[in-house]
């Protein structure tokens, strides 16, 4: 896990309540209101999407909504900047492949609905 429990300058981070969302069909937990990308990062998820042309993996790059590399399919909508979108209970987050959701491994394509 890569959450900082106690920071020498900032102390313990202020967080919302722990909520559950799904990532490629799997339940995952994060703190309400933190960017989706942070919940994924804390859970060890590195790949947010695969590109349209070269099918290369991408993840967080700028973390402030500029580069749009961290986009994923969120609640069925593609190209959602996960570094800027606050996490909510029950969200469906899927790895994006080009402009659609990548089929989760070993599973059927999900329709992206929560």
């Amino acid at each position: 896990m890569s959450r900082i429990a106690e920071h020498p300058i900032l102390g313990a981070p202020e967080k919302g309540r722990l909520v559950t969302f799904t990532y490629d069909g799997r339940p995952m937990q994060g703190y309400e209101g933190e960017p989706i990308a942070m919940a994924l990062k804390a859970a060890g998820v590195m790949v947010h999407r695969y590109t349209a042309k070269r099918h290369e993996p991408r993840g967080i790059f700028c973390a402030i909504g500029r580069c749009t590399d961290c986009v994923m399919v969120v609640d069925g909508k593609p190209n959602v900047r996960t570094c800027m979108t606050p996490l909510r209970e029950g969200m469906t987050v899927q790895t994006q492949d080009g402009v659609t959701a990548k089929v989760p491994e070993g599973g059927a394509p999900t329709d992206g609905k929560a």
Partner: protein
Amino acid sequence: MDRSRDIGPFVPGPDDDLLICRCEEVTKGEIRRAVHAGMWTMTEIRRFLRVGMGLCQGQSCTKLVKGIVARELGVSPATLDPETSRAPMRPTEMHVLGDEKKEA
């Protein structure tokens, strides 16, 4: 600017397959070749290859592209045409952009 000026032949480079525009997945080699095909301004490069026309609208790669184009043309990057800037500054959903708050 006389587009017939001789800028020398295209010489393949070892890093031509290096990705420069992350959004539209355009390589350094493609940019260099485009210059030799006659794309001598940032605007033309953009229209020709879509560099900087993706989701981030060039916020990540413009400086890199400028450097490559300038080197290929043998000019200073500062002499290349300025970046354009078009609204909306951030990608905006149609239903949001179309939903103007009516003033009372």
